[in-house]
């Protein structure tokens, strides 16, 4: 059986643009959510989001930048970080035995937003010539492939909020199958322009701004939760066939051992206990472990009334009615990165295991009887010796994706 090593992680996020910065913010329960002061957002009811502190000009020269939507910029920077940390340089012979799988829900939403603004808002026909190339959903994965001359499979997965968990899971399967030895896999999303934000708001899933502190607006599993907050960023993994990674003495951060997928068929958006529970069970079975072996679950935990109550029941169904497994939703701090959420949260789960630190569910002030797990409320917790972690991603459209990782070798 071919095993899948995680040898690099790259991050652009509302909590910093490196794995270290991300984990430091989580450990300190520092929120990336804030009020959007820019007048571009004045028409929103809830002017809150979790933006990444990211300026494309710091990474790309001007002619290049004009070809890259923000979601692609994130992905390229995160992929480069992952490769740098894995200390991997693609050799000529490896390139067709390597691939790129990226998840995104909304792709080049900013380019679409800006194009429609030109066309309808300004009543101008001066839509920029690269609009199609910037906005296409596969732009991020294609550019990563071009940048690193990777000529194996290059796919973009779009299953809404589980897109990047699916991309990572499918990438791991490709390595296991023997088709490829190396995969760049993850997700990216840049939905913080007015059009997409207003569309999310219209769905009535966005949290109301906390009157005292906007940074605490997203309150997963808390009785007074009012919804999610949109975030932006990317998380990209370098995955390698275990023996190859060992042979080249790559830094192994962990191993992808389980991937579970189910699809809800009852409703487009309503979460299902059964669908979520079975996805977790499939992932555990794939990893060949019992639920009791899992030391931490990074929940989907959007902060909506529906999700958090359903996910609590689903976790109990899998882990037992009186389970004490620590579960946290880090979305309280980094917001919901949609198509990038699964990758970012799986990165957090893997890094939490590596560091022996459980990131908290922040802003959990009022316990809810319907949400009664150990949510690691408000403060991070030390947890040395974690051997396996789980990350849940559940999507509109019904695709439930669960990833399980095991700890890497002690080094």
């Amino acid at each position: 059986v071919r095993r899948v090593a995680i040898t690099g992680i790259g991050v652009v996020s509302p909590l910093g643009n490196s794995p270290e910065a991300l984990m430091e913010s989580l450990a300190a329960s520092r929120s990336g959510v804030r009020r959007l002061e820019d007048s571009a957002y004045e028409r929103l009811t809830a002017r809150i989001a979790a933006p990444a502190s990211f300026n494309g000009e710091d990474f790309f020269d001007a002619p290049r930048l004009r070809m890259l939507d923000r979601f692609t910029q994130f992905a390229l920077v995160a992929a480069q970080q992952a490769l740098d940390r894995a200390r991997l340089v693609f050799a000529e012979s490896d390139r067709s035995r390597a691939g790129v799988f990226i998840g995104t829900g909304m792709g080049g939403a900013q380019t679409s937003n800006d194009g429609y603004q030109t066309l309808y808002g300004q009543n101008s026909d001066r839509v920029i010539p690269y609009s199609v190339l910037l906005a296409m959903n596969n732009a991020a994965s294609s550019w990563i492939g071009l940048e690193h001359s990777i000529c194996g499979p290059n796919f973009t997965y779009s299953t809404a909020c589980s897109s990047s968990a699916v991309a990572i899971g499918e990438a791991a399967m490709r390595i296991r199958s023997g088709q490829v030895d190396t995969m760049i896999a993850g997700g990216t999303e840049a939905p913080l322009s007015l059009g997409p934000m207003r569309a999310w708001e219209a769905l009535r899933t966005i949290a109301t701004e906390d009157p005292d502190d906007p940074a605490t607006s997203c309150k997963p599993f808390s009785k007074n939760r009012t919804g999610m907050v949109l975030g932006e960023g990317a998380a990209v993994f370098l995955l390698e066939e275990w023996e190859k990674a060992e042979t080249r003495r790559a830094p192994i951060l962990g191993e992808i051992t389980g991937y579970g997928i189910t699809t809800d068929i009852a409703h487009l958006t309503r979460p299902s206990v059964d669908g979520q529970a079975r996805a977790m069970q499939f992932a555990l079975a794939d990893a060949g472990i019992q639920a009791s072996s899992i030391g931490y679950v990074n929940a989907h935990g959007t902060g909506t009334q529906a999700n958090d109550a359903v996910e609590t029941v689903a976790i109990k169904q899998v882990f037992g009615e009186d389970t004490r497994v620590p579960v946290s939703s880090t979305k309280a701090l980094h917001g919901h990165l949609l198509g990038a959420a699964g990758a970012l949260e799986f990165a957090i789960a893997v890094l939490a295991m590596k560091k022996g630190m459980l990131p908290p569910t922040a802003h959990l002030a009022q316990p809810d009887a319907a949400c009664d797990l150990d949510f690691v409320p408000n403060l991070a917790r030390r947890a040395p010796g974690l051997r396996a972690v789980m990350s849940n991603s559940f999507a509109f459209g019904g695709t439930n994706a669960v990833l399980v990782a095991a700890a890497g070798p002690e080094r």
Partner: protein
Amino acid sequence: MTTYTRLKNILVSEYKLPPDALLPDARLDALGIDSLGVMELLFKIEEEFRITVPSDQVELATVNDVVAYIERLSEEQGTAVSAQQSTP
């Protein structure tokens, strides 16, 4: 300002190209402006010269080809004089 100088200004400011490299017979592909890049350049030329570039394909290999093309379109579209006046 001549068409050549104005084009050069675009190439320097938008493409970060060294002015010395922008000789009239310099090839666009050698300057890093491929067929896709030409599409974008034409978009900027439309704005700077207040002309409309037709959608039919045109072969533009060198800086001078672009200059000649701009001048032909300006002539045809009667924007040559006003465009020059509008430029400081």
